[in-house]
Structures are given as C-alpha cells and as structure tokens.
C-alpha cells in the first residue's frame, strides 16, 4: 500500500533546503512537473467559476455528443458538459486527496517526532498500530467504513489519511532516531534548549525534504484510492470527481471510449507529475551526498602539484616536516643485493606503465594510478607501501581484474607469465584468477558472505573451479582450516561468518586464498583490520605459508613494520606513482626519496610492536630454502 522507500538518514542541515530548491529548478522534468501541478491546483481553485455549464443537471436531449464549439469535450451519458464536469471534478478530487495527505501528515509526523525523540514504550505501541493498519488493504478498510458511515468523500479521505499516517511515521521516526544521537543535538540539550525548541529547530529541519518527497508519493496513492472508490460507484453521485466521471464513461466503453480519456489523463498526468517531482527531489538529495563524498576522495587522488600539496599536509600529520615533492616519471631504483637476488630470476607478474582511471558522470576520466611498473619474481614477497589513497589497492585490483564499478585500466599492460590481463574479461582470467593468482582482503568480516556457511564459501570455488566432488572439497577445506590454525575446523566449517571472530575470519580467507596452490598471492593490507596480537599471528602464518609453498606475494600495506617482517623487495607509492623501489634492506638503510624517509620516520614515531631494522636482517632469510 505505502511501500515506498524514501532515502532516509541524510541529515541535511537546514540552510541546505533553499539550495535544494535551486538545484531542483535546474532539472527540466521537475520544472515541467511543478508547472503542471500548479495548473492543476489553479483549476482546482477557479474551476467552478470558469466552468461554462452547470456540471450536474442531466440533459437528455444531448447525450453523448461529440466535441463541438459548445461542448469542448462533448457530453456524457446524461448529456452533461464533460469539460465543465472535469473542471469541477478537479476541485473535489484535489481537495479530497489534500485532506487525506494533510491528515496523514499531521498524525504521522507528530507521532513520528514524539516516538523518535523520546522512544520508550511509545515505540512499541506505534509499531503495533502500524502492523495493524498494514494488515488490511486500504480499500477494504474504506469500504467497511463506507458500509457503516455512508458515501461521504470527506469521511473516507479522513479515514484514509489515518491509514496512510504510518508512511510518514516510519520516515520521521527513523530520521529522528538517527538525529537525536548526533552530537549537535546533544550540545543543544546541554546548552539548555527545551525539547520543543530542539525538535523544531534541529530535527524538523532534517526531515523536511524527505517529507516533501513522501508527500508527493502519498498524494499519488490518495488520488488513486479516491478515484478507485468513486470508480466503484461508491462515492457520492451528486459530486463530480475524476473517478466518478471514469465510472460513468466505463458504462459506455463500447459506445464512446473517448469519454474515458479525459478523466484518465487527469489522473495519470497528475500522478506522473507528482512522481517525477518526487524522483527529481530524491536525485537532488542523493547527489548532494555523493558530491560531498567525492570531494573528499578527489583531494587524495588528483594528480600533479595539487596532490603533492594535499599529501604533504597529511604526511605532516604523521609528525614529520619534510618538504616533499612528487616527481612525475621514474622512481628511484636500488640495485639488488644478494638477499634479493637469491630469489629466482623468473618474473611471473610484469606490470608496465599501468594507469587506472574512473569514468565520471560527465564523461571525463579521473586517473588514480599514473603509470607504474613492477616486476614480481617467483617466490618473492614484494611490498607495496604508501598511505591510504596512494593507489596501492587500485594497482592490486587492476592486477586481479577486479576494479570497482567504473574503474578500468586506461594505459599500460599487465602480464602474468606472458598472458596479457589488463581489462581482462571473466574468460581471459579463467584458470588464472582464483587458481594461479589468489587474493587476501583487508577487512575479514565484510569479505565473507554472511548468508552462507564458511564451509560452503570455502568449497564452492574448489567444486566449481577445480571440479572436486563435495566430499573431496570438504576434506580439502577441513585440512586447510586446520593448517591455518583454526582450533576446531569442523565447527568453523559449519559456522556462519558472523559466528566467528575477525582473526578467525581472516584465517578462513587465507585458507581460501591458498586452497588452489596459487603461484602469486595479492594481499591487500591483510592485517590492518585485526587486533595487534592477532596481527602478529597472521603475519607468522603468512610467512610460513609463503615459505612452505614458495608463493610469490604482492603485499599491499601502509606499515613498514610489516614490510620489514615479510618482504624481500619493497616499492613505495605516493599519489598514484612509484617513488622508490628496491630490496628491503637497501631501502631501510639508504632511503633516498623524502617521502620514503618520512614514512620510515613515522614508524619510529608510532612505536610499532617490532623494531624496523632487526627483523629486516633476520626474518626473511629464515624463509629462504
């Protein structure tokens, strides 16, 4: 009945509303809709005064006349002037719909404000009444009322307003409940404003725009129901309405179907205009939010000098005051030392001049990775380090062929053992992604589908990709779970993701990644979302698995401690470019780029669990065979 989802919880400050109106007027569809609705309202007001004929008395001499200069739209089944009836009916229909809307608004908004602001028992009562009203179709309620109270349009519409009130109630309630916990509302309360003032000033201003949208939609429903009742012949026959005219025309559908056109057009066009208006407003509201979000990201992704300025600012936050300049072009390269060259020389992943961009709604492309080159050799752990927004994850996703919607490789190449993968389709990646190249994500919980058991998510790729039987896949998954250090593999296998801890979930994801014995693992900040103690355990696990299976790894991180712990080589990334690359020891001992220096200085300031230099000299060799 009122199943309309209006975008909620967009707490827009009051000053924005005028702004919204101006934006709305820039949308041509919204302007046309507004003009049409203004016309309808105008006719509703002056209609009876400009109607050329009295709409009611029957004139049996002139039944069903075609349109003529005397009768612009012809006459109906009782010889009445259709044009005059349409004008008068507009007044009644609009007034009836308005009565329902206003009733619903008053009941819904007031109760919603009170329930949302005070919560408590009022809550339960209100939600119970809502489900009570929702259990019966509105028209059945109205018909039952009509059986008792008689055919009054106004009584029907008042009752319908009460029935529609939950539409406003739910909207206002959710928005108010989210606003009341906002800090500025707390502040207002502390500063001694009365509840009434707070509701009036801070809360009402937030719900205003969504209420207008909801009103357009409620008006559509009110017009539909009111016309429907009249169409059933259950209205007051003495009052012309759009629905009543339609009913009269319907009785002559075989003789004069054209009579149905005028009331149908009135109902349909008014409803469409209201709908377009609601849609345009929703777009404006949503876009305001999108623009705000995008702006924040744009600061960290824009190229050139702007990026240099903004990143310099954020590096300063790390507690370092080095003057940093971003250089377009080649990164500083350190020559291999014996530790790094001890690895096999076979390159399995070759990324050349990779550029990644996102298409914008205006057709342009915003580039976030500006041409980077990287080789990963067999069995090598390669760290990719930089602050958030530097393009590390974008580089990793590009290699996997899993860039978020709108993103694509705009230049350069990605080659896995000679196979070109840039912008590859599912078919291009068949047998590679999930088989030879695996992925370990950052945030363990959001990377598991909460609707399926851990076991089913572990075995699905094994069965689909490797063609294992159900039992084989289960055995394999259980042994993997055991290998990654899960104490009770069978129980975890049967559990849903939300039943295990974050550390366990990350182990599950690692088990999934290594399940197909890949040659290359792309790990995107695999420990960032974990507790510090769990971080160390997961790093140990990764190191052991890497050594045991001789996998190459591209380890994306913002933590030099992790690099020191695990990596053979490291590449430093800043603002979509590589600035320095080389063996881990060389970078730690002789950092040349000021950005690298600032990052190294930052870890000393942060005081990580492990000192940076000691493990660099010891841990990775332990992994050498």
């Amino acid at each position, binding site marked *: 009945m009122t199943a309309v989802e209006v975008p909620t919880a967009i707490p827009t400050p009051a000053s924005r509303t005028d702004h919204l109106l101006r934006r709305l007027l820039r949308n041509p569809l919204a302007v046309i809709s507004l003009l049409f609705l203004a016309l309808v309202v105008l006719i509703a007001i002056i209609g009876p005064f400009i109607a050329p004929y009295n709409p009611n008395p029957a004139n049996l001499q002139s039944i069903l006349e075609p349109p003529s200069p005397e009768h612009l739209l012809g006459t109906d089944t009782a010889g009445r002037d259709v044009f005059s009836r349409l004008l008068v009916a507009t007044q009644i229909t609009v007034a009836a719909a308005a009565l329902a809307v206003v009733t619903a608004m008053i009941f819904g908004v007031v109760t919603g404000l009170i329930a949302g602001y005070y919560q408590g028992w009022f809550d339960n009562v209100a939600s119970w009444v809502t489900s009570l009203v929702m259990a019966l179709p509105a028209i059945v309620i109205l018909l039952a009322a009509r059986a008792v109270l008689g055919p009054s349009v106004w009584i029907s519409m008042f009752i319908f307003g009460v029935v529609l009130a939950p539409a406003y109630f739910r909207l206002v309630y959710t928005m108010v409940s989210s606003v009341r916990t906002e800090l500025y509302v707390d502040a207002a309360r502390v500063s001694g404003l009365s509840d009434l003032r707070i509701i009036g000033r801070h809360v009402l201003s937030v719900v205003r725009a969504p209420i207008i949208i909801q009103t357009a939609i409620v008006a559509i429903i009110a017009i539909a129901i009111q016309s429907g009742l009249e169409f059933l012949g259950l209205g007051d026959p003495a009052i012309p309405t759009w629905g009543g005219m339609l009913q009269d025309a319907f009785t002559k559908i075989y003789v004069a179907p054209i009579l149905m056109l005028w009331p149908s057009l009135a109902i349909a066009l008014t409803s469409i205009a209201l709908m377009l208006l609601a849609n345009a407003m929703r777009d404006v509201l949503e876009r305001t939010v999108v623009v705000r979000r995008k702006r924040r990201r744009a600061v960290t992704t824009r190229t050139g000098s702007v990026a240099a300025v903004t990143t310099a600012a954020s590096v300063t936050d790390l507690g370092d005051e080095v003057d940093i300049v971003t250089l377009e072009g080649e990164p500083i390269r350190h020559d291999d030392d014996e530790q790094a060259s001890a690895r096999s020389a076979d390159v399995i992943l070759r990324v050349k001049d990779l550029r990644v961009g996102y298409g914008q709604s205006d057709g342009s492309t915003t580039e976030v990775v500006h041409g980077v080159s990287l080789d990963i050799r067999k069995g090598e752990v390669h760290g990719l380090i930089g602050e958030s927004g530097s393009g590390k994850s974008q580089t990793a996703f590009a290699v996997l062929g899993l860039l978020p919607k709108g993103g694509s490789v705009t230049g350069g190449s990605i080659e896995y053992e000679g196979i070109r993968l840039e912008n590859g389709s599912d078919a291009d990646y068949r047998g590679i992604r999930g088989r030879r190249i695996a992925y370990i994500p950052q945030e363990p919980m959001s990377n598991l589908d909460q609707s399926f058991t851990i076991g089913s998510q572990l075995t699905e790729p094994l069965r*689909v990709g490797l063609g294992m039987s159900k039992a084989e896949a289960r055995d394999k998954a259980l042994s993997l779970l055991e290998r990654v250090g899960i104490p009770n593999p069978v129980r975890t296998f049967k559990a*849903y993701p939300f039943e295990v801890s974050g550390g366990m979930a990350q182990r599950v994801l690692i088990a999934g990644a290594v399940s197909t014995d890949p040659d290359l693992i792309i790990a995107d900040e695999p420990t960032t979302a974990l507790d510090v103690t769990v971080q160390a355990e997961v790093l140990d696990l990764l190191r052991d698995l890497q050594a045991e299976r001789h996998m190459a790894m591209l380890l994306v991180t913002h933590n030099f401690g992790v690099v020191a712990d695990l990596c053979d080589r490291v590449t430093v990334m800043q603002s979509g470019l590589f600035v320095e690359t080389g063996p881990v020891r060389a970078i730690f001992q002789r950092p040349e780029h000021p950005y690298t220096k600032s990052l190294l200085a930052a870890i000393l300031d942060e005081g990580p669990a492990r000192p940076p230099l000691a493990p660099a000299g010891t841990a990775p060799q332990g992994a050498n065979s």
Partner: protein
Amino acid sequence: MLTFILRRVLSGLVLIVVITIISYTLLYLGSGNIARQILGQNASEELVAQKAAELGLDRPLIVQFWTWATSALTGDFGRSWFNGQLVSVQLGSRLAVTLSLVIGAIILTAIFSVILGILAARRGGAVDGTVQFFSILGFAIPGFLIALFLVLVFAINLHWFKATGYIPFTTSVTGWLSSVTLPIIALAIGGIATISQQVRGSVLDGLSRDYVRTLRSRGLSSNRVVYKHVLRNAGGPALALLAVQFIGMIGGAVIVEQIFALPGIGSLTVTATAAGDIPIVMGIVVVTAIIAVVVNLLIDLAQAALNPKVRLS
C-alpha cells in the same frame, strides 16, 4: 527456529483477534438500527423488534460478539442480512477467484522484478534508463487505469482476451487464461514497478560489497556470484516488499474484478458495502486479515530460509 515460528504465529493470531474485535465493534455499533434498515421505513415496530430478535441484535454487543466469534472459529461467519445465504459459502467460492488473480500477479511480479532489477543494475546506461522510466509510469498510474487501458486495447479492439466474465480453470484452461490474463497483468504492473526498483538498488549495493570481489577473486564467474550470492542477499528486502504488495493487490483486485466482471471477493465487497450487509463485510475483513497474516508468516519463513541471521536469532 521453532521459537521463531511460534512467536510469529502467536503475534499473527493476536493481530487477527485484535482486528476482529475492533472491526466487529465499529461495524455493529456504527450501523444504527439494523433491523429497521433491512425491513425498510414502512415496517411496523413489532416487525422490526421481531427481526432484531431473530438476528440476535437485541442482545448486548459483547454477547453478540461471543456468539459470532465462537461460530466463526468453526468456519461459520453467520448469514447475509439480505439474502440469508451463509457468509462462508459466499466467500468460499469467490476467494478462489481472487486468490488466483493475486497469486498469479505476485508470481509475475517476483519473476519480472528480479529480471528487470538485475538487468538495470548490471547493464546500467540505456537499459537502466528504460527500466527506470517504465517504473515511474507503472508506479504513478493507478492499476485500474492500466486495467481499463488493457481492456480497451486487448479485449475490445484486438479481441485477444475476454473483456468480462470468468471461466473456471476446471471448465477450460485456455478459457481461464483468457479471462484472468489481463486482470493479472493489470495487478502486477504496479508491483513490478515497485519491486524491480528495490531489486535494482539491492543488487547495485550488493555488487559493491567486498565479499563479491573476494568470491570473484577465487575464480567464480560474475554470473554465478550475482545469481547465487548477491541475489540471495537482495532477497530479504524484496520479499518484505512482496508481502506488502500481496496485501495491496487484494485491495487492487476489488477494483480490477469490477472492471472485468469477475466473481471474486472484490465484487462481493462492493455489493455488500453498497447494501450495508454487515455480516458479509465482517467476513471479508476477517478473511483478508487471515490471508495477510498467513502471507506474512510465509514471507518470514522465506526470510529465515534465506538469511541465517534471522533463522538463528
């Protein structure tokens, strides 16, 4: 799981009881001197009193309600005031017609909403624009206008379908299809417009989820991830909306049945309302409430099947 079902059944029963009490009170208190209305203005006082006694209207309301409710539990909702027929008999035969319309429309809605919603979300661009455009039309234009349009074009002008009347499924399958196709489409269009938007939104949201990337990183195809994982997670909100649509369509059927002259609950409601035949109106209210509760229960069960969080809570 069992307590989940029991709790839902219990709250449904309470809902039915509350609706019944409220409607009974309002309908019977609001109707004034019923015996007088039935017999007309010219009947003598004794005759009116006799009629009232015959219908049991001279007893206190609570006693009347108790008598009605106890027999209602056995499936007897009393008799029509005007033609003396059993309410349950009148409702029974008509319920099948209305339910076949509404269930047909709900199936159509579910199928097309999923297809269109996924198509719009994944293809984007012109496909998305077209789906959005028709959704706006489908949502804004009332169902009975669509029904009138369908009758005019496909029944009266093209003669593809029957314009009016009902042929039972048992008499002729093609005849039945010919009589219910247009009403079902008319009922479904509003639902498709609403739910395809919901599905589109949920799929778009789902596609941007981390787990989708991770599942694909493990070699599963985009199609498989969308149809197995994204769709399942999108199912919850869409199902909730489907329940609301189901109730709404029973209301829509009242008008649509009138247009196509189908002998369903809708036409019975209209005649009973116009005549003020309270026992029938009461029966319709109770049956509708029961249907609503059953539908919501089924949807809750479906939710629990889809979403382990619901099931395990």
